[in-house]
């Protein structure tokens, strides 16, 4: 045992561990929530992540076909090649169409709110251990993104930036129970905060707790951000009320909300890097 502890390998292990723990402490104290070592690795290998994201996109758009007989193989191959070309064009068209829809909504939002500043980002990876749909974006600190910046898709709220490196950032969606969004129901004006539980999150739902048993909020109501707290601007759409449930922990009720965004299908989003009234932002 003594020989093992005195070995060079153990000494190097101890030095690396000390450095990693120091990096973790630094990450917590600088409020970027990313260790400098992770930041360096992400800077070097972010291209690999982008490449794999593009490859996954291609794979999801393609299908595998089997040749029926040897005599038809040549003909099938020729047709497959034509089909692949057509499908490639179609994929391009579908991508352009979905991007156009996103940019149209964005343009509308930009017209309504001149103060908003955005960074357009693509999703490059997702955390396999995280059940709540966290993902990594291809832009970071150098693009003006900070921790707690809201992430949107058109007029819809997606989540917020949880950690940031120079070239990429990690986003927690509103399906994460750690995310709380000050919100109000548009028709009744009842306000509170939208959050979720692991159980609801698995079903892709959120909740607006603390409503009276006699609440006028009902299914079909629209829930938007209220802007209280300065993390999110007012009037971003969170989702629609699907029902009212009694809270088991107290005498209140809560509204079950279906978010307007399909998080698993997102490819591109916008990060709001500045809006009037943002917490911690310098007045511009």
């Amino acid at each position, binding site marked *: 045992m003594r020989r*093992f502890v005195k*070995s*060079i*390998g153990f000494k*190097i*292990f101890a030095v*690396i*561990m000390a450095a*990693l*723990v120091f*990096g*973790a402490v630094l*990450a*917590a104290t600088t409020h970027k*929530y*990313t*260790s400098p*070592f*992770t930041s360096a*690795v*992400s800077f070097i*290998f*972010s291209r*690999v*992540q982008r*490449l*794999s*994201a593009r*490859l*996954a*996109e291609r*794979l*999801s758009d393609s299908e595998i076909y089997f040749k029926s007989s040897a005599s038809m193989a040549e003909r099938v191959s020729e047709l497959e090649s034509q089909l692949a070309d057509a499908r490639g064009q179609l994929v391009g068209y579908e991508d352009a169409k979905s991007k156009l829809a996103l940019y149209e909504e964005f343009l509308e939002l930009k017209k309504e709110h001149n103060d908003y500043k955005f960074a357009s980002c693509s999703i*490059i*990876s*997702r*955390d*396999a*251990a*995280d*059940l709540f749909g*966290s993902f*990594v974006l291809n832009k970071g600190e150098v693009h003006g993104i900070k921790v707690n910046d809201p992430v949107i898709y058109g007029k819809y709220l997606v989540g917020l930036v*949880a*950690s940031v*490196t120079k070239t*990429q950032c*990690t986003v*927690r969606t509103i399906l994460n*129970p*750690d995310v709380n969004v000050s919100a109000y129901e548009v028709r009744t004006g009842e306000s509170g905060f939208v959050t979720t*539980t*692991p*159980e609801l999150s*698995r079903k892709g739902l959120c909740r607006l707790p603390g409503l009276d048993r006699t609440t006028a909020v009902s299914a079909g109501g629209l829930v938007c951000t209220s802007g209280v707290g300065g993390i999110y601007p007012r009037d971003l759409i969170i989702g629609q009320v699907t029902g009212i449930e009694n809270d088991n922990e107290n005498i209140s009720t809560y509204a079950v909300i279906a978010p307007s965004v399909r998080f*698993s299908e997102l490819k591109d989003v916008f990060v709001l890097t500045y809006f009037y009234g943002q917490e911690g932002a310098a007045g511009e």
Partner: protein
Amino acid sequence: MNYVIENKNAIIRRVLFVLILLVTAALQGTAGLFPTPGNIGVFLLIPAAVIISMFERGIPGLLLGTFAGLLWDTYTTGFGFNAIYMTIIAFGAWGLIHYLMRNNLSTAMLICSVSLLLYILLYWLWNYVFKGYGTAWQVLIKYYLPTFLYSVVFIPLIYLLIRTVMKNFR
């Protein structure tokens, strides 16, 4: 002359290990790139780092383990937990093989399974139990244990791949 060939082989082998870790991280972290039935996850980086450490010498294995952890951290919101965990298990796996165990598929299955299970339990404790979520057990049973079992299935494949690299570039 033998020393030069050995040195060249060691460099090629370690470059290949880095590539394996990069591909594994991409497969694990990119949605749609690796089949995951029933929306469960898959942890491929832990077996890859552990098995590389079992075959490699102490310090290179340790460094490759740290690299795997740092790669994983770029996909997550944590501030360096994966790098710390992977460094410990990589060094631990090398120590076990160097001092106590033989390097074969059975020991690889054992060390990788324990490492995976420990990671999952730590992650689950930190993110569900300590936060007081009432449905923590359901999450463990419905998501994390199937994820563990699904990940274990790929240990022999990763072992064979790394052993092939090791045999060809010893």
